[in-house]
């Protein structure tokens, strides 16, 4: 039986115990996997962007199963905005710091002037710091794109 979009939208959202239990069990593992992808990004496929998308998808999954207001209790709007801006600031801040210390943009080896470890390991750890920033930004922006699209910008109720 095919239902129209209008009928689907007018349906009262019903709580389904199978759906909610499944999502409640899955979300921690999805988030652990996203964190693994971010922190292991410079040794294996993955990185800040992919890990951030996986983390954002876990919050979107919460919003799909429990409704948009429940996901806004989990990750509040203020936290979302602050995390997005801090993520962008971490990326550009580290890049600009490298340039200010006399190196190239995103040339992590000059950060030895701040914390004296050898330049080779600074290159590895600098990539990690930048990817944490990228992950934070991508996660929060994915969640807020979903919030805005699902509620037509009003952020009151989702799908």
């Amino acid at each position, binding site marked *: 039986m095919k239902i*129209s*979009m*209008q009928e*689907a*939208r007018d349906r009262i959202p019903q709580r389904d115990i199978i759906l909610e239990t499944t999502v409640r069990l899955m979300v921690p593992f999805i988030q652990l996997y996203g964190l693994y*992808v971010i922190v292991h990004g410079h040794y294996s*496929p*993955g*990185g800040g*962007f*992919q890990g951030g*998308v*996986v983390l*954002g*998808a876990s919050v*979107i999954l919460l919003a*799909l199963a429990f409704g948009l207001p429940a996901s806004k209790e989990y990750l509040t709007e203020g936290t979302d905005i602050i995390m997005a801006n801090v993520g962008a600031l971490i990326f550009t801040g580290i890049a600009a710091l490298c340039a200010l210390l006399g190196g190239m943009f995103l040339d992590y080896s000059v950060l030895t002037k701040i914390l004296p470890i050898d330049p080779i390991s600074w290159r590895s750890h600098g990539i990690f710091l930048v990817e944490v920033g990228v992950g934070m930004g991508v996660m929060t922006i*994915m969640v807020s*794109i*979903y919030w805005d*699209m*699902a509620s*037509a910008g009003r952020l009151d109720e*989702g*799908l």
Partner: protein
Amino acid sequence: MIWQLDLVLLILVVFCAVAAITVKDLLSATIIFSAYSFLMCLLWAEMGAVDVAFTEATVGAGVSTIFFIAAIFRTTRRSKD
């Protein structure tokens, strides 16, 4: 690289792409586009570009499908103007 697997995946990709732009229903087009993204992800992984395949699987098959469905649920069957 296994060229037989490449050929099968490419035929399926072309089939999905043609189906996604010819089907009338927007929701069906979204789901077929998700299948297209997943097949492209398999193709990237098979050709050795694992990083691109990962991005395709997370963004193409995962999040963009949800965005499309969220946008479609805000449309109406007939335009009002």
